[in-house]
């Protein structure tokens, strides 16, 4: 029985639609390959190991900052939810301040603030890890807050009624469920952090972005090099986004 298609809203595909789409994708890919094949790739191939190593640096920065930022973010979220009033205000201030400031400014700020207070210059790596971790912690604090809120309140109350301490309830009942619920959002934050690492080159670390700029300064092959750059980030982020979609098909990437 033929179903009349509505003139409004997204449509279910017919078999023909699917074939037209596959044709379009094939055409687009061929066009891309044709455009890309006309570029000079010797430069990219010759600096392949250097580029791969710098891509590794980007991943290292991302993973380190999330590894430090997640516990810090959990701590911030808990302080924000149930600390003493003064601590709660402080946690809110840190989270909102970092989230409202351009990431580039946060990086500069750490880079400038430490010498201003200690009189010593910070090594680039310390400044980079510190600023990225701070950014990760503030964004993850909000993710954790949403995760904690997703666990029904009645579970905490039941825990209290059965005589568990607040710490026990948090560590053994609420947090495990919250972490599972927030997994897609956590990976989304990793995607965001991976993109933010492209800003860290301003302190002089040779991540993927800076590596491409350095090679381009010497060889001047912008089309091939910047295409590689975009493709590198696209592949890495798509991989993570794909994992999110596997975990939760309805998840919307907010940032």
């Amino acid at each position: 029985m033929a179903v009349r298609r509505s003139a409004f809203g997204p449509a279910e595909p017919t078999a023909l639609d699917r074939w037209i789409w596959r044709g379009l994708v094939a055409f687009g890919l061929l066009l891309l390959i044709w455009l890309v094949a006309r570029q000079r790739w010797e430069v990219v191939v010759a600096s392949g190991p250097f580029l791969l190593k710098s891509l590794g640096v980007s991943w290292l920065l991302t993973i380190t900052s999330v590894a430090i930022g997640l516990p810090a973010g959990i701590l911030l979220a808990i302080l924000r939810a149930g600390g003493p009033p003064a601590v709660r205000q402080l946690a809110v201030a840190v989270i909102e301040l970092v989230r409202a400031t351009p990431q580039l400014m946060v990086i500069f700020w750490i880079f400038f603030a430490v010498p201003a207070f200690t009189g010593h210059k910070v090594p680039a790596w310390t400044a980079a890890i510190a600023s990225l971790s701070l950014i990760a912690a503030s964004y993850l604090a909000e993710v954790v807050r949403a995760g904690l809120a997703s666990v029904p309140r009645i579970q905490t109350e039941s825990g209290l009624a059965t005589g568990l301490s607040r710490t026990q309830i948090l560590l053994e009942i609420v947090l495990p469920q919250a972490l599972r619920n927030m997994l897609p959002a956590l990976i989304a934050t990793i995607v965001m952090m991976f993109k933010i690492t492209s800003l860290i080159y301003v302190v002089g670390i040779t991540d993927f972005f800076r590596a491409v700029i350095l090679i381009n300064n010497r060889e001047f092959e912008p089309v091939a090099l910047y295409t590689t750059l975009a493709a590198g980030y696209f592949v890495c982020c798509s991989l993570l986004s794909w994992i999110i979609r596997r975990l939760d098909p309805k998840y919307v990437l907010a940032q």
Partner: protein
Amino acid sequence: MRWSVIWDYREALLSGLALTLEITALTAVGATLIGILIACLRQQPSYIAGRLAETYVEVIRNIPSVIKVFFLYFVVGLDAMPAAVLGLSVHQSSYIADVLDAGLRSIPREQSEAAWTCGHSRLQIFRHVLLPQVAATVLPPLTSQFIEIVKNSAAAMLLGIKELTFQTQNIDVETFRGFEAATAVTVIYLALSLSIAGGMALVGRRLTWR
């Protein structure tokens, strides 16, 4: 610490603020326009249009904004300002498209169909049925997108545009007072974000009154 540098550099900071505002305003307009286009494309009763919009969002979202800006500047060969504004617009449009799409999706399609049966044109349906409902629900997430634009505008300094973040670095280079400058500029950014949030809240109140 010597806070008088901020006063000494007031003109530089003010001109930086003006440039940041200019980039933000142009990007907000550009990103919203592209975002509306993509969201409408997704709402079309055509599978192909929907997939095209989806692919656009997916590709744009998985590439950092700085790379788009640099690509437009170095590969396409635009000037610094158009490259920054266009790059940031394209970047933010994918997020704004999602926000608008979610808003449009929250309205049952029966409303559009009913209006269509009553003889309204598509444009009339959008203007009189969808827009008034969508505008109110979409405003809070749209506010955070606009604040995101203020923050992303800092990327323009990497092309040598003398906006706020650029001035911070400049003050540090000339006076070694980077901390004072960074603190002052952070406060300015905070004030900008807060005023956008406040402004959008005012608009929201107007929208819910009628």
